[in-house]
């Protein structure tokens, strides 16, 4: 996950906070729980509640030569890392499939649609449910065009309201359970990419502000921190 810009066009605010555990750069950190050693902890694949911001370094121990981790050893390097804390920061992450983050699964049209209102492929768009998500073509007459999915009644059939041009058997397309304004995405286990194969609005409270719909290995999503610690009442 990468820092891209701010909603307010303001400058980044960088703070240096103490970690409660080992952290990787490019992940969202959250407020530490009561009694935890430091000030920030790692988020999870489905939660960024009380998010502080994005970690932009993870340090390297001068003594050990590896990344600095939380340590209770007297004299050890303190795990203090830089965090971009803007509540309105926009983060850019790649859309992927699976917990470990492989390219989005590409599907192929098996039944042509002359009116352009449906796409019928080989994989289910109903489970996980992609209704309200997005579909875009990667080949054929509609290459580069996208539409909001408005219904996934039949297992392998998705419906749109604004018609595409007629598609043909063999055209390829991609779809994702994400769309503008929706809240909730599920991250990969390294907390750096967003899973496109999870049902719409499932997971951590990121809000989706933009999509870059390219190929299966280079499509991206822009997110804001819905569960930000600076904008909500502390629990």
């Amino acid at each position, binding site marked *: 996950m*990468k*820092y*891209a810009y701010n909603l307010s066009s303001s*400058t*980044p*605010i*960088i*703070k*240096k*906070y*103490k970690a409660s555990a080992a952290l990787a*750069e*490019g992940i969202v950190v959250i407020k530490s729980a009561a009694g935890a050693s430091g*000030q920030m902890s790692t988020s999870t694949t489905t939660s960024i509640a009380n998010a*502080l911001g*994005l*970690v*932009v*370094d*993870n*340090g*390297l*121990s*001068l003594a050990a030569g590896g990344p*600095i981790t939380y340590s209770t050893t007297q004299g050890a*390097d*303190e795990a*203090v*890392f*830089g965090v971009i*804390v803007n509540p309105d920061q926009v983060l*850019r992450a790649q859309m992927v499939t699976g917990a470990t983050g492989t390219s989005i699964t590409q599907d192929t049209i098996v039944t042509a649609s002359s009116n352009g209102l449906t796409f019928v492929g080989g994989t289910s768009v109903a489970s996980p449910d992609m209704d309200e998500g997005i579909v*875009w*073509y*990667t*080949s054929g007459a509609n*290459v*580069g065009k996208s539409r909001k999915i408005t219904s996934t009644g039949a297992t392998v059939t998705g419906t749109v309201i604004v018609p595409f041009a007629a598609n043909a058997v063999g055209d*390829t397309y991609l779809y994702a359970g994400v769309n503008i304004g929706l809240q909730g995405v599920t991250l990969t286990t390294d907390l750096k990419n967003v899973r496109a194969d999870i049902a719409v609005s499932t997971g951590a409270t990121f809000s989706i502000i933009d999509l*870059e719909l*390219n*190929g299966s290995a*280079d499509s*991206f999503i822009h997110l804001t921190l819905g569960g930000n610690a*600076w904008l909500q009442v*502390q629990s």
Partner: protein
Amino acid sequence: MIVLVKQDWTADKLMQDAEGGGKKRGRAAGGWIDDIAAQKKVITLCPLCTNKFNPARVHYRKEKEFPVCQAKCDGCSTFDSHCSWYIYDELYTQVRSTADERRALAKSRAARIKRGYL
């Protein structure tokens, strides 16, 4: 008699309280920054301190898309709203998405659509 003064915690005070301690008292700023650079951490320097730092020498990259950031200066420990920030070169592409990167992708997308396959 014990007088209890209630602390009024605002978001600003919480952020200030949670910040790292910074340079130790009496420690030379240059040595402290060399230590941070050796640890490959992000470095923030105010306009007065930034000219004393050579990022290329320690394989750091100055952030240019956002020429300033708001941070506590690693040299003089002063919060400044016009700091420069430096990221370790190898980490830069893992934590920053730049307009140049997005522009290159957009150009590539347009070229691929012309070829008929995204």
